[in-house]
């Protein structure tokens, strides 16, 4: 300290205070690990679970009940997902699944997995994972949930197929806790056989007058008495009392969004009243809006990864999947372009980024991409 400082008015008083508070002040060694412990109550880097039960929900779907090994579960908001890690055919990868159990019970998370055509990870879960197995997941995250500050009391849930899972968590919470909400669930399925949780939903609707459950079947069996077809504007208007006063939540396959969004827009539902879950199921990217006509999806390119080996990547597959197959681990959570965990810098080359990927302005400006939703269109050079 410079000598003149001692001549500043008030120096002696402040200096005395400094000396006293050093002597009697906080010993910060008592803080060791504290910040991390508090963060871990909400957002641990991962959670290790035991599969305590596997419940058959339909011919093609199972619920995996996950009990934390530590005995502690972070709180979550109904509608959020966990990313499930696993090694499948030698590839370390992951898939996000919405939690289907209620956030009000704190013993386990349920995830419900339906078989999909050419499923990779879902087949692994459905066929290989047994009761008592260990599973590692991320902490819950995602922004598809009810916000009491501006969503309003009346909700319309529009679900398609296994897109019912986040709604199960919401409906279970609302019914179990007796929350003051009005819910209409429009649940679209191709056939009655693919409906999940039908008996439970029926039972809840019977017991709770503020919850209406309406299955909508595209290809119903002969003599089916319920609602047929797709979840159209007229279907919604028939089932919902005051369509202008509701917030709409959508979760299902991309085809459902493509159909339902114009219907809702046709009803003049304002944008703020429509909440969509990002859906990560791999559809054929070559059919996406803006895909370059010259490419078929099967072209193979070389990706130079700084400091690592070169990787072969197909244009029709995400860069993330190609990296994972080559044994390169990229941190990832949502796998649908939202969370930005898998962000990498594109030094050279072009990628296709489908609609709906939430890039930051700075990322666009300086060439960063979300590898989970970036498809190589030529040879690339990236920095992880």
């Amino acid at each position: 300290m410079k000598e003149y400082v001692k001549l500043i008015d008030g120096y002696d008083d402040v200096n005395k205070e400094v000396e006293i508070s050093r002597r009697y002040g906080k010993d910060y060694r008592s803080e060791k690990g504290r910040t991390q412990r508090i963060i871990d109550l909400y957002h641990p880097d991962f959670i290790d679970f035991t599969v305590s039960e596997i419940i058959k929900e339909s011919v093609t779907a199972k619920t995996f009940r996950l009990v934390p090994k530590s005995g502690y579960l972070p709180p979550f908001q109904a509608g959020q997902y966990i990313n499930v890690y696993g090694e499948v055919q030698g590839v370390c990868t992951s898939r996000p699944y919405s939690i289907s159990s209620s956030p009000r019970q704190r013993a386990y998370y349920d995830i419900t997995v339906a078989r999909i055509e050419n499923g990779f990870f879902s087949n692994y879960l459905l066929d290989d994972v047994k009761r008592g197995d260990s599973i590692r997941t991320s902490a819950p995250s995602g922004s598809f949930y009810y916000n009491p500050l501006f969503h309003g009391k009346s909700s319309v849930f529009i679900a398609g197929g296994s897109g019912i899972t986040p709604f199960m968590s919401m409906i279970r919470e609302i019914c179990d806790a007796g929350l003051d909400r009005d819910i209409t669930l429009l649940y679209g399925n191709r056939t009655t056989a693919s409906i999940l949780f039908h008996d439970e939903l029926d039972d809840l609707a019977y017991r709770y007058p503020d919850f209406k459950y309406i299955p909508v079947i595209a290809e119903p069996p002969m003599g089916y008495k319920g609602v047929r077809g797709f979840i159209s504007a007229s279907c919604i208007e028939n089932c919902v009392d005051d369509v202008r006063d509701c917030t709409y939540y959508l979760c299902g396959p991309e085809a459902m969004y493509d159909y339902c969004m114009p219907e809702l827009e046709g009803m003049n539902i304002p944008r703020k009243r429509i909440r969509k879950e990002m859906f990560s199921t791999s559809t054929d990217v070559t059919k996406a809006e803006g895909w370059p006509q010259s490419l078929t999806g099967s072209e193979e390119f070389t990706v130079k990864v700084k400091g690592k080996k070169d990787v072969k990547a197909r244009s029709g597959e995400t860069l993330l999947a190609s990296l994972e197959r080559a044994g390169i681990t990229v941190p990832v959570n949502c796998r649908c372009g939202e969370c930005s965990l898998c962000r990498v810098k594109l030094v050279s080359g072009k990628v296709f980024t489908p609609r709906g990927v939430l890039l930051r302005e700075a990322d666009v400006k300086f060439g960063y991409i979300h590898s989970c939703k970036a498809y190589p269109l030529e040879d690339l050079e990236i920095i992880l």
Partner: protein
Amino acid sequence: MKTDNKEIVMPDYDAIVIGAGNGGLTASAALAQAGKKVLLLEKHNIPGGCGTSFRRGRFEFEVALHQLSGMGSGEKPGPLRHILKKLEVEDKVDWVEMDKLYRVVLPGRLDVTIPAEKEAAIKYLEERFPEEKEQFRKFYDFVYKYIIESFTVSRTPAVQVEREKFPLYFKYNLKSSQEVMDEFFKDPLIHLSLNVYWSFMGLPPSKLPFDILAGNIFIYLEFKPYHLRGGSQVMSTALTETVLKYGGDIKFNCGAERIIVEDGAVRGVVTEHGDEFTAPCIISNISPVRTYVDMIAQSLVPDEAIYNMGNSKVSVSAFTIFIGLDCEPGELGFKESMNLFYALQDVNDSFAASRRLDTDEDGFIVSCYTLDDPHFSPPGTSQVVVVCLKYGEPWMELPPELYHETKYRCADTLLRRVEEQFPGFREHIEEMEVATPLTHMRYLRHPNGAVYGFDQDLKDTGIFMQKKSPVQGLYFASGWVEVNGFQPTLTAGYTTARRVLKKMNGEGK
């Protein structure tokens, strides 16, 4: 080159920087630019620390920057512009100058908007407060004179610093903002109109050094408040471009777990993934608490480092609501981008609320970015951030089961207060995210979710601040060891790098 002699193994890097916040970024960029081999480690997946953004729906929310100080225009560049120019960031960013400092409202009693120009500010205040009319020019002249003295002192050899030459410095450097304001003004509403920068520093006027308040008043008037297109994330990412351009390595999703110390000097870092990197110099852009307590084996931390920290108190965190509106700002009556609303006329009283969960009495800021820059959100929308300062403790004590409902309850109170000022506000909300002190803790990994490092009261700022580490080769560059805010932390990283370079080149000590 391979060698069996351990003694002469070259370290992997000249310097390792822990944390890609403002200070870590400018330090890395400056070192890389000077030809040093730099490794920058960042726990998060993007650079910036507080200087970041996130996406929800069609909005990209600015996390921390409300008004950038020290930029100045191209014709009259401020100190920060010089640094950003040197670090090759100036031209990569579109800067937006603001012509108002801020608007202050105490409902029913005060509603003032201060222009960002000295003479205009004086004129405005003289008209608004005729009873103490003659004081404003005196006050601003005094602030300017004080700051020039204070600046000159820092550039003058210690032996030549004398009270006769720098009377204001010697009289006021260790006074609180409240003490000095009381010398000039009686009307508490004038105090409210002028002491606004307490909110940028996280301490009430009774504790905030006048030196810091004066610095803020001076720098924002002289060099205007600025914003940048795309938000602070653009500046943060632009700084990483400079690091990469000059051959620096950056590892995201890769926090430093341990600092290796041997014989009282740093030797390197072990990452969270278990990789070890060696360097004779480590710049910590993270909290000294984590640096000393969690990252260095306890037996290797000099007692002095822990003892000196006993004087420091972890600062306040923030409770923030990020809002995307589906209408233009004018539709709800927004006229100023930076608004500060109070419930009580004494800031020292309202600051007491920062120790509680409830948000009914806090002073709070409403920043409407879209007003200054229509590109800040999509056409026909607005981006608004509502923030009040809150200590982390009540949130840390909360049972996790009660977290979400508590968060919504506190946000609801604040939104009702916003709605009183801008009727119809809630009806236009399209996207929203609420961040609590625990959110800031999660992303910054600061103790108590602090957003202003250690409290910068009189005993822990300026002349009493502990910047130097007793561990050889360990440096700090952040708001934990410097004045807080974007300009000071960006500057801190840059000056720390210069200090390190001097030492590397054998000039300093």
